[in-house]
Structures are given as structure tokens and as C-alpha cells.
């Protein structure tokens, strides 16, 4: 299997006056094509910094990030990134927000309108296509952002705690929808979360991050798909993996 994203000896610091805040130190990771990798870690362990670097939005202080073998020169539409904060354009309706990536790519007007409507329906916002982001609840904005990111048509998708603010019911549905989408398209997904259950429900592989981006555990998840929440969570293997990840996280806290 070919490697889509590779991080080599990466260090990221944020310099301010005479103090440098080190977010990641000598971090290494490779993501294989078509896999669903969840990154599990506590707040402040450099998860978001890592995604910013993988997306090409920020540049490493030292080390390299390779996208399909060549170093990153900046963001590319081949990599979709669902950031933690809302970045819907407040002056555009949901419909026009979802159309935006296709607008930039130069897609034909009728085609992008139809595609956007389809995506909006997928995330359950069909009735709110003409609403502006500020008229929507936080969860609805999240779903609109998800639709917009999917409109990008990227083959590699980075997600930063995308379902953190949603209610449990909706989160389960969106997780299932995402797993289905991933199965259907064969995309590569890097999914950051701080929720052990979410990491196990979604990932083929869970990478547990400790402080400064040290990898505490790199665990393959050998649970059958599709993973129905009700029955998966009571499987002995799930319980076992849950305990392994929890103890790895605890180890990092020390």
C-alpha cells in the first residue's frame, strides 16, 4: 500500500519574543492510502498543530511533511481539512457555502448547485439550505462544514474533533455516515479525537499521542465493519482495546 502522508523528524515551535512554545518534537508518522486513522490524545498534545502541518497550512520549524512523496508547499485541494473552529462564510447561505470549493475549482454553475444540494441533504440540512450560518445551531453549522469539505472532492481528509459539539445521537449517526462514505469512496481519513470510543468505532488504526507529539501507542483495530454501536461496544475485543488505549493515555499523563 502506498503512503499518502509522511511526517519525518518534525518539530514545530511557536516563537514569541524570547520564548518558543514547542508543540511537537521529533514527530514521525506515516499514513497509508485508503486507511482510516484516528489520532487519540488529550487536549494540548499537539493534535491540531499536527493537522495544520499535514494540511500544509503551517510550515514545520524543522523536519518534513511529504504528500505523495513530495514535500508540502502549501494547502492543496487534494487534502480536505475540517478544522475545529467554524469557518463558514457568514455572508453566504449554506447552499452557497457548500458550493464555494466547487466555485473555486471552476465547476459549472448548474452542476455545483445540484451537487451542493445533494451533500446538504446527506448531512440532513435540506430545509436550511437558504439559511445563513448565524441562523443555525452549532451542530448544524458543523454539518454544513462537513458538507462543504466533502464538496472539495479531496481524496485525503483531515478532521479535527469534528463531532465534539454534537449530541450523542447525532454523533453516532454522523460516525456511521462517515464510515459508510469512507467505505464507498476509499478515501484516506485522518481523524483527531479525544474520545476513546469514537477512536475505536471509526479507525482501522489508532495512534495515541502524548505530550509534544510522542507516540504512546500505535494500535491496529481489528474489529469487523460495519460497527454497529450497540453491539460493537459490548464485544470483548472492543473492551480489551478500550482498556489498552485508556492505559496508554494514562501513561502519557504521568
Amino acid at each position: 500500500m502506498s503512503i499518502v502522508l509522511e511526517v519525518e523528524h518534525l518539530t514545530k515551535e511557536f516563537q514569541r519574543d524570547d520564548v518558543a512554545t514547542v508543540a511537537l518534537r521529533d514527530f514521525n508518522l506515516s499514513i497509508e492510502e485508503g486507511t482510516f486513522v484516528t489520532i487519540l490524545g488529550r487536549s494540548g498534545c499537539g493534535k491540531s498543530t499536527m493537522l495544520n502541518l499535514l494540511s500544509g497550512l503551517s510550515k514545520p520549524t524543522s523536519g518534513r511533511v511529504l504528500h505523495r512523496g513530495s514535500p508540502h508547499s502549501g494547502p492543496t485541494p487534494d487534502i480536505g481539512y475540517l478544522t475545529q473552529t467554524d469557518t463558514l462564510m457568514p455572508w453566504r447561505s449554506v447552499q452557497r457555502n457548500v458550493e464555494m470549493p466547487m466555485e473555486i475549482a471552476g465547476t459549472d454553475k448548474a452542476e455545483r448547485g445540484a451537487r451542493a444540494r445533494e451533500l446538504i441533504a446527506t448531512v440532513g440540512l435540506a430545509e436550511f439550505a437558504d439559511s445563513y450560518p448565524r441562523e443555525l445551531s452549532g451542530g448544524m453549522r458543523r454539518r454544513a462544514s462537513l458538507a462543504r469539505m466533502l464538496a472539495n472532492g479531496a481524496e485525503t481528509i483531515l478532521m479535527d474533533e469534528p463531532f465534539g459539539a454534537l449530541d450523542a445521537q447525532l454523533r453516532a449517526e454522523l460516525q456511521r455516515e462517515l464510515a459508510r462514505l469512507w467505505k464507498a469512496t476509499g478515501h484516506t481519513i485522518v481523524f483527531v479525537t479525544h474520545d476513546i470510543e469514537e477512536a475505536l468505532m471509526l479507525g482501522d488504526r489508532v495512534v495515541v499521542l502524548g505530550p509534544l507529539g510522542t507516540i504512546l501507542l500505535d494500535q491496529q483495530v481489528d474489529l469487523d465493519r460495519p460497527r454497529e454501536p450497540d453491539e460493537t461496544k459490548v464485544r470483548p475485543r472492543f473492551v480489551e482495546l478500550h482498556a489498552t488505549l485508556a492505559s496508554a493515555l494514562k501513561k502519557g499523563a504521568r
Partner: protein
Amino acid sequence: MTTESSADTDAPTGLSTSGPVKEARRRSWWYRNRRTTIVWSLRAGVVLVFLLLWQIAGNTAANPMFVSDPVSVWEQLSAWIVDGTLGRHTWITIQEVVLGYVIGAAAGALAGYALASIRLVYDVFEPLMMALYSIPKVALAPLFIVWFGIGIDMKVILAAVSVFFLVFLNTAAGVRDVDRGLVDAVRLMGGSNRDIAIKVVLPASMTGLITGLKVSIPYALIGAVIGELVASNRGLGYLINDSAAQFNTAGVFAAVVVLTAVAMVLNTLVGVLASRANRWKPLD
């Protein structure tokens, strides 16, 4: 997390939404306009009371010449309307104000947008612009007379200069306040700098531009009228000066009333523009 197990929907596409629902609601005319009607009635009441008190004060004051009264002002207005004086002078002032406002606002918006988009340029020019902004524009009137004569040009330019700085500063502030997250979002979609400028910075700076347009209306009027007061034989400013020189207080007030009307019309026009551009602002 345990509530997740209560998931009972298994639709492949489309999610069970628990969000708000949109429903049609017919509202009666009175329900929709109750508040507006009350506010407007009260406003009219306040104006009427003011006019009444003014009339009484004018009739009882020791020297009515200083305060005049609404009836005399009205008589003066109608006399001027009939003999065409008012129309001629008002038209001149409107031309100066509108030309000055449009030129100043366009230049201010363009300069604000262009300068603030490039950080180095903005850092260089910002203190200079602030310094120029701080100059009382009235002080420039004599200079403009030397440069442009005492015709309409000098008033237009005085109005334009006053408007320029306000629109410039507000637009620049709007451009610089653009959310970094939105810019990053466009970069992630593979957008070029041009996409960022047109699809993010331009709409985001609209709020600043509109603030600038709103606050600068009075300054367009000030510029034009000051110009007329300093040197002119036409326009409402001249009419005020001329009436005052003849101790015609009613004439001064009549001209001021017309100026107020011009300002209100301009305010309304810009207000309509603003509400169209700001349709995405949150619902109250």
C-alpha cells in the same frame, strides 16, 4: 455516551434532525407593524410638541427676531419655493454634497481596500493617514480656494476630502479584521490570493465600509456648507450667510430645515444600501 445505544434510525442517507423546524406563520398587519406604528406616532408627537413650544416662545420672547417661529419659517420657505430661490440654491448644494460624497467614498473605499490588503504598505501609511485625518478640513478651505477657485469644484473637493478619510479608515479596519480562519478555509479549497481577496476580504470588509458610509454623510454636508460659507454666491450655505447678514432669522432656519431634509434623504438611501448588504447579519 450511553444514550448512543438508543439510536433507532437506520436510514442510509439523511439524518434524523432534532433541530428547529421551519413553518409558515401568517401574521396580521397590526402584529407586524404595531411597534413601527407606535414609534412613528410618538416621533410625530415629539416634533409637534417642539414646534408648538417654539411658536409660543417666538410669540412671547422679548425680541422675536432672534428665535423666529415655525410659522415665519414656513412663510419664508413658501416664499422661496414660489420665487425659485430655494430650488436653485438647494440644487447647487445637493450637487456638491452628492458629488463630494461619491468621489470621497469611492476613493476612500478603494484606497482602504488596497492599502490594508498589503501589510507593509499599510504599516507605512497608517500614521500618515491618521495625521492627515486629524487636520480640521475647514482649515483647508482657503487653500482649496487658491487651488480650485470659488466655484463648485472647491466645495466638492472639501466635501470629498472630509468623506475620504472616514470611509478609508473604516474600510481599512474592516479589511484588517478579517477572520484568519476564513482565509485559511479558502486556501484549503485551493483558492488563490485573488479568490481570497474577492471571496473573503471584500465581503468581510463590507461592514467597515458601510459604517464609513454612514458616519461620513454629515461630513459631506459640513464640507459643502463650510465651502459655501467661506466663499460663494450660491447654495444653502450662502443662503444662510445672506439671511443672517440681513437679520432674517426665519431665513436662516428655513435653509437649515432644507439642509436637514437633504441629510435625512441621504441617510435613508445609505440605510437601504446597508440593510441589503448586511442581510446575513444575525436575526434579532
